[in-house]
């Protein structure tokens, strides 16, 4: 609605036709100032963007609405244009709205009529509300400030990459991670992909790419970077695009880099240990299987051999009549021993993997097993209390096998407490035992050993677990005895079960 307001604009200028309609349709507020008369036409939008009706807007002195911080600059630009110092008037300033809040206004204008002396007669222009864009810019600035603050506060090494120009700023601590001396300028390509480990290249670049294309809010990736000495170090890189052009193309990206090499190696080491433990478990499992099988076969073979022997001796009383029976009977006896030999050889073959005993600190083994098993313990809501006597001597043991024993006893304890309501406590203790031994105890609060296995919990293939093979405890006992120790049930009642085992301590 371009209906002129009679009070402020008594006579719309004759040429105020088409161009003004066009301007107003563009969403801008329009002003048309007759300098000599002091009359100023203001379109309805001019006031609306500040929350005023056209009537109210007509009577406003806009200079008084200017934000104090913006006033001088805005008026300076206006004067410059009026006096012909600049061909066009362009300014951004805040104007006070009716609701008491400032709006960001982008003003453009030009002197469209001058008198013979060159003084301005008529000045027209537009106001555009750019508050939203301004808020966005402000937000961006804020987030960049926060970002920087976060980075610098964290003590991480920093980088700032001008993607278009290709330069990358890398902070001194970044330089020291990769062993780069001096301040020689670096280009982005010199860091990534140039220094990336070939095995990490594809993965790392995919993460960067996803962020650069705006698919991910942040780039966050760990990879190996080649240092000046040629060695690779694991680093964790986080980055964010700070500037994009109108088309959304990333112009500048900044972020952090952290040296996570040692942590990475520790994680790798732990993973390897867990694998080794599993592998050793399988081997021992096989060895124990063979041992158990050997035992089960050796008993009937012994009986066969003995019974044959009994019959052969009784035949002596029969005399020559029995002679045709003697030879086949002797064959039976012979074959029994032969079968025993085979069993013996198989077991010897499987048992090749003798324990490699070294001095081991019990405490460190207990802690590492508890750490390995933390996921299981946590999932079963079991709290572990470790109680190690002061100054325990070290023991001579195969660390992996010892871990196997502890892991097995802990697993049994977890299973034993599966039906327990409330807090479940698993107590692992170690103290000096008799005869220069270290005695370890694993105590649960479960309902005690099941009737089926109470008589001999170490019997191979006896189990109360639905998916159990019944070799866990026999394995443990074999291992402990191979170390020269003992494994036994110290206590079993409806209030809990305690397994104990000893290992010979290292003298001195």
């Amino acid at each position, binding site marked *: 609605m371009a209906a002129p307001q009679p009070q402020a604009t008594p006579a719309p200028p004759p040429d105020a036709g088409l161009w003004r309609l066009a301007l107003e349709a563009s969403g801008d507020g329009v002003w048309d100032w007759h300098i000599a008369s002091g009359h100023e036409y203001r379109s309805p939008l001019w006031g609306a963007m500040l929350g005023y009706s056209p009537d109210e807007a007509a009577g406003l002195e806009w200079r008084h609405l200017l934000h104090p911080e913006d006033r001088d600059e805005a008026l300076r630009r206006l004067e410059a244009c009026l006096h012909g110092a600049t061909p066009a008037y362009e300014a951004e300033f805040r104007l006070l709205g009716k609701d008491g809040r400032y709006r960001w206004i982008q003003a453009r204008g030009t002197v469209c009529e001058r008198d013979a002396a060159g003084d301005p007669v008529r000045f027209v222009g537009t106001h555009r509300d750019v508050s939203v864009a301004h808020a966005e810019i402000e937000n961006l600035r804020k987030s960049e400030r926060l970002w920087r603050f976060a980075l610098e506060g964290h003590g991480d090494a920093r980088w700032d990459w001008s993607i278009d120009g290709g330069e990358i700023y890398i902070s001194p601590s970044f330089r020291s991670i990769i062993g780069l001396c001096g301040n020689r300028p670096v280009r982005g390509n010199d860091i990534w992909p140039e220094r990336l480990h070939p095995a990490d290249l594809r993965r790392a670049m995919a993460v960067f790419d996803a962020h650069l294309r705006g698919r991910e809010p942040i780039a966050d990736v760990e990879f190996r970077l080649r240092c000046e000495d040629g060695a690779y170090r694991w680093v964790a890189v986080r980055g964010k695009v700070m500037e994009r052009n109108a088309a959304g193309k990333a112009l500048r990206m900044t972020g952090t880099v952290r040296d996570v090499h040692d942590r990475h190696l520790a994680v790798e080491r732990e993973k390897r240990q867990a694998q080794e433990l599993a592998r050793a478990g399988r081997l021992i499992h096989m060895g124990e299987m063979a041992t158990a099988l050997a035992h089960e076969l050796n*008993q009937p*073979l*012994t*009986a066969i051999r003995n*019974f044959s022997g009994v019959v052969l001796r009784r035949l002596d009383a029969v005399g020559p009549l029995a002679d045709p029976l003697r030879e086949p009977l002797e064959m039976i006896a012979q074959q029994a*021993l032969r079968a*025993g030999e085979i069993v013996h050889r198989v*077991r010897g073959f499987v048992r090749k993997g003798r324990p490699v005993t070294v001095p081991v600190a019990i405490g460190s083994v207990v802690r590492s097993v508890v750490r390995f098993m933390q996921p299981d313990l946590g999932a079963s809501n079991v709290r572990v209390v470790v109680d190690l006597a002061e100054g325990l001597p070290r023991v001579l043991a195969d660390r992996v096998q010892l871990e196997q024993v502890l892991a097995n006893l802990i697993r049994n304890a977890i299973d034993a407490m599966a039906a327990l309501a409330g807090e479940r406590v698993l107590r692992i203790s170690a103290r000096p035992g008799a005869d220069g031994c270290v005695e370890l105890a694993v105590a649960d609060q479960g309902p005690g050993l099941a009737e089926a296995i109470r008589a001999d919990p170490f019997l191979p293939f006896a189990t109360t677990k639905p998916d159990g093979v019944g070799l866990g405890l026999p394995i443990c006992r074999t291992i402990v005895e*191979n170390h020269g120790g003992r494994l036994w049930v110290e206590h079993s009642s409806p209030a809990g079960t305690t397994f104990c085992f000893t290992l010979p301590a290292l003298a001195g």
Partner: protein
Amino acid sequence: MDDPLVCVVDDDDAVRLSMSLLIETLGLPVQSFSSALEVLSDEEVLRQAHCLVLDVRMPGLSGVGLQERLGRLGHTLPIIFVSAHGDVPMVARAMREGAFDFLQKPFNEQTLLDRVQEAVQFAAAQRAARARLAEIQARIDSLTARESDVMAGMVAGRLNKQIAEGLGISIKTVEQHRARVMEKLQVDSLAELVRLVVGMGGAEASKNGQ
């Protein structure tokens, strides 16, 4: 004399029976048990047993555990271990504790029989020696205090005169005591007497010492 009883202890029924029948072919009485604790509670058997054939690994008290308990109780009967496991540390332990032998199952049955016989003979000899020592001790114990003193002098190689002076008695009395000592100890010569007493542990064996 007691029968030279052989005890077989094994939790496997077939093995236990076969070993019992086998050992019976030697003409020896056999008593078998399926657990170590049963043996421990049978005093009559322990008194008569000349040999124990013992499985190493059994539920409850193990064979090696029984060996330890018997040792503590002062039993010295020979033990032959048999095991279906090749537990090297256990074998070492059993042998250290004084096992008579250790056989890995399955074994040549003749080896077992040979070892059982040797063990029985060993136990019999041990018992005979113990019985003889007890008998000699009984003879020595039958001497009077004075006869014992005279015997100590005889064993020490003193002449009757020296013994008489030492004890403050007449030579005639010494000669009477000498004859009584020879008679009570059932020896015909001084040399035989010395051998007997020294075999018992020397002068300490005399009834009241010196």
